[in-house]
């Protein structure tokens, strides 16, 4: 009998510990799905399929259940990590009224990418977002944890220059 092929683990002990720490908070292990996806995504900047299988093992679910939930949110990338910085430019109504579309296009043109893509040096993923809940600062962009407010072409250029 051949031994089962050894699969390389995706989750580190630290990630596993973080995920397990959520379990006592909920009466069902499935409820830890979204927290677990966030733990992995924070560490790896994406959630590869291997991680899905391992999360499912910890939470006593079928990998399909975890994958189903992940696929509902457009948020988690699976094929490859997002850039070192992930930036969302709001395109909803208040930002749109203040010129958001032109800003996103300008930034994409400068980087030679489409919205949603990552630059070839892996530094930046630039995406559109729906309302970021900061409409008083329209047009705005959330880059990592930093909110860039009242964006102008100059501010957008400066952001790209300082990456």
């Amino acid at each position, binding site marked *: 009998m051949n031994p089962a092929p050894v699969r390389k683990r995706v989750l580190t002990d630290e990630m596993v510990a973080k995920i397990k720490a959520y379990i006592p908070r909920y009466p069902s292990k499935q409820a830890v799905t*979204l927290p677990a996806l966030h733990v992995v995504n924070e560490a790896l900047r994406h959630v590869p399929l291997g991680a899905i299988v391992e999360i499912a093992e910890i939470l006593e679910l079928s990998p399909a259940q975890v994958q189903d939930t992940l696929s509902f*949110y457009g*948020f988690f990338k699976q094929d490859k990590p997002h850039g070192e910085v992930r930036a969302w430019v709001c395109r909803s109504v208040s930002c749109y009224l203040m010129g958001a579309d032109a800003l996103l296009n300008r930034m994409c043109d400068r980087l030679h990418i489409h919205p949603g893509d990552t630059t070839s040096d892996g530094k930046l993923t630039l995406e559109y977002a*729906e309302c970021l809940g900061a409409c008083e600062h329209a047009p705005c962009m959330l880059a990592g944890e930093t909110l860039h407010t009242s964006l102008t072409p100059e501010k957008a250029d400066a952001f790209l220059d300082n990456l």
Partner: protein
Amino acid sequence: MAEFEPILLANIAKPDSHTRRVYESTGGYAALRKVLGGQTPNDVKETVKASGLRGRGGAGFPTGLKWTFLPKDHPGPIYFCLNADESEPGTFNNRYLMELDPHQVIEGLILSCFATSASTAYFYMRYEYPLAWKRVQQAVDECYEAGYLGKNILGSGYSLDIFLHRGAAAYICGEETGLIESIEGRRAWPRIKPPFPAVEGLFRKPTVVNNVETVACVRHIMDRGADWFKSMGVPPDPKNPRDAGSYGPKLYCLSGHVNKPGCYEAPLGLTVNQLIDQYGGGMRGGKKPKAAIPGGISMGLLKASEFDCPLDFNGPGKYACLGLGTAAVVVMDETVSMVDFLHNSCQFFAHESCGQCTPCREGTAWSLRLMKRILAGKGRLKDLDLLLEIGDTIGIMPGTTICGLADGAAWPIKNAIRKFRGDFEDHIKRTNPEGWMRTDPVPALDLVEIH
């Protein structure tokens, strides 16, 4: 009229307003001490009921009444979900509260949990609020240290845990049963109601879902009483037997083409004109206004001539809008094309429909395709009727969908085309001089070409 003293925003300008130290120095947690020191959950429920408080999350349901739908003498657990998913375009008042005065929200949440006998609360916050996330987490930690959370709070015998739960950028997670499914770890598909969450909600147990601003109001009601709260706002409209009145302060979000966009507090019932002129510093660049969203994009549109609309729970409905929603006003000046506006709105809803109900999934997607076609200069007058047909047939109100997202998608379509039909007809005739009058089916290939 005497100058209104902010209540919910009273302390946000103080340095370190987000800390327990500053919160307590302004009387914070006195209401909690008072209530836990001698009142029963039922006392709190009755006070909140008497205050006339209605939910600030969008639907305006009377809060005390919602709480009484929980089963009596339930052995537990009962869950409380705090809805901090705030994703309705134009809306940011929950963010203000969570970033600048999170303890106010938490005190209100603890009081609301006590009233409903919940022993676990999940604080569901949208992903895109990193600062609010940090501040609320810090505030929760500070509460455990101070004995406001955990076992046997302030020696009262009442125990409560609050857990933060982070969303992942999906608007539908703000719908209360979508939120519940999301916490449970599944796709955030709203549930068919009944059963309502109060009977069967999170983990199939009785559950209350309330908005951040709602529980912040509860804190002040328990501090200063129901009569005080009821002294602000607008009594029920005698002409509308279903109007329960609009009491208390409200956080209005103002954005778009005004000089001073921001979050402003006033008693319910302020008009759009007052909000723009007295708070927003007037129209930007002295331009004329053309339209405004009265309460988040789902609520539809007001024409500039309708800006005398009072922003209370009964007001926008009288102007053919869906309702007060989140009281987030987005102002558009005369340079805005309603064709562009409606395209933006359709884009949002097509992106955010959860896809569960066919009329919503297909209706939002088709309305976006029609708007793209119109924008691309291939529109026909008949498209406006098609759009209206979609608008009139998707949603809870016509009875074709599970949740209100579809009604929210429909209202901008209905209001934009019915109130600004000329804008659309002009655009279509100007950009499609050869084909605007055609009514034959559009070949599928032509459609594919456009997007």
